[in-house]
């Protein structure tokens, strides 16, 4: 029997996959963006609770981190997918009136992804907060600044420089993590690829195309974060003065 290379792998098919896959990039980015928002907000709250050693909150946060880091992302997605409706149904049985079916699937996915990532982002934030010299906080206090002012004008700007690489990694991790959301029935690019491959059984070409797309997206975001990092870093030169 006469077989050709293209029977096993066709570059043309890889190319042909792109237009159909690209259509679903907005869903992937929307999911990653929302999850990122959740991870930053929750991560910051956990970090501050642990940084300021707020007693009960810090304990709860530590327990939460342990669970989130100690269980697979996929399992967490399933727990959210089946668990959130279950909780709502229990509320309903107590007299609440929430239509469980009205909640889009993407909500379960971005909450689960966001909480998972928050566990890691919070440690980035905490390390960044702790990197700010306590003496600078004292200097601000001694000159009469309130803690709010010190937080806003000293701690956060300085911590941000240290946190930014970690925040960038967390967004990139989330973009890749969205592919797991296909298991919750969200038609983002991974699920889209499975639908397409189901028609012609060309799985390999589809996954290669998919890998290229994920790679391009993450490289773009990497570049963006590098650019912001450069902007935010304490310059190696004296500050340029307008008009000088």
């Amino acid at each position: 029997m006469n077989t050709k290379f293209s029977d096993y792998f066709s570059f043309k098919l890889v190319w042909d996959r792109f237009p159909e896959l690209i259509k679903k990039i907005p869903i992937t980015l929307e999911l990653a963006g929302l999850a990122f928002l959740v991870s930053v907000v929750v991560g910051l709250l956990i970090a501050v609770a642990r940084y300021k050693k707020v007693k009960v909150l810090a304990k709860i946060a530590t327990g939460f981190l342990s669970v989130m880091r100690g269980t697979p992302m996929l399992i967490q997605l399933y727990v959210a997918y089946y668990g959130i409706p279950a909780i709502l149904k229990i509320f309903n049985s107590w007299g609440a009136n929430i239509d469980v079916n009205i909640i889009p699937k993407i909500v379960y996915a971005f909450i689960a992804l966001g909480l998972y990532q928050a566990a890691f982002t919070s440690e980035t934030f905490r390390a960044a907060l702790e990197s700010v010299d306590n003496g600078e906080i004292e200097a601000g206090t001694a000159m009469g600044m309130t803690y709010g002012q010190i937080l806003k004008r000293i701690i956060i700007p300085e911590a941000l420089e240290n946190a930014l690489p970690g925040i960038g990694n967390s967004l990139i991790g989330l973009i890749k993590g969205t592919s797991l959301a296909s298991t919750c029935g969200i038609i983002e690019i991974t699920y889209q690829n499975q639908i397409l491959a189901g028609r012609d059984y060309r799985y390999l070409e589809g996954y290669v195309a998919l890998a290229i797309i994920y790679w391009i997206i993450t490289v773009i975001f990497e570049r963006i974060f590098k650019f912001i990092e450069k902007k935010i870093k304490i310059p190696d030169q004296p500050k340029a003065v307008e008009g000088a």
Partner: protein
Amino acid sequence: MAILEIKDLHKSFNSNVVLDGVDLSVNKGDIIGIVGPSGTGKSTLLRSINLLEKPEKGTISINGTQLNLPVKGKDRKKISELRLHTGMVFQRFYLFEHKTALENVMEGLVTVRKLPKEEAKAAALKELENVGLLEWQNHYPKHMSGGQQQRVAIARTLAMKPDIILLDEPTSALDPELVTEVLNTIKSVAEQGYTMLLVSHEMDFVRKISNRVLFLDGGKIIEDGTPKEVFDHPGSERAREFFEKMRGLKEPEFYI
């Protein structure tokens, strides 16, 4: 007239008593040198005056603002008033790393004194000139020597126009060759009529610039007088021993 009045100040860290009933009255324009062995409460005394440490007992009054200790919830306004009356220069400078020299000096003027930016900038430039660092205004702390950083920190303190300046071992973290420039800056500040409390191990300098010297030991002021009285004729054995030891340190122990 006393600008600062401290009565019966007590402060412990856990079971370790650091201030054991300190009474002190400081007049306007006084330059007070505070000396004594390590761990006798010199820094804690300074840091209690602006409430970076919270003593358990006693009273502190500066320029009419009186705070009775221990600190209670309603004292927040009083504490910030006391902090406005005082300015502190730290051993390790503690400049804001992400701000330029100029921005460091402007910070308190803008956020605490609420001056318009232009006004704050003009005032800050004046203070940087005062410490001889006008050309360094746009440099970040990490690009300055320790001596320069400390002078910026002094400018930052002066800009707030405090009634009392608290200097907590301002030259102890510096390389030896940088100590002189900072001492010269402190000297010129002292000559401008500021009231200063200076904790230092630079005995010659303390003797030269202060009009009054305190010797602390075991959380108490055990010597209080003119530099001549305290350094040359200390009443206590403890002080005599300490000064002898300090003098001994100046004799080279090793010859190359």
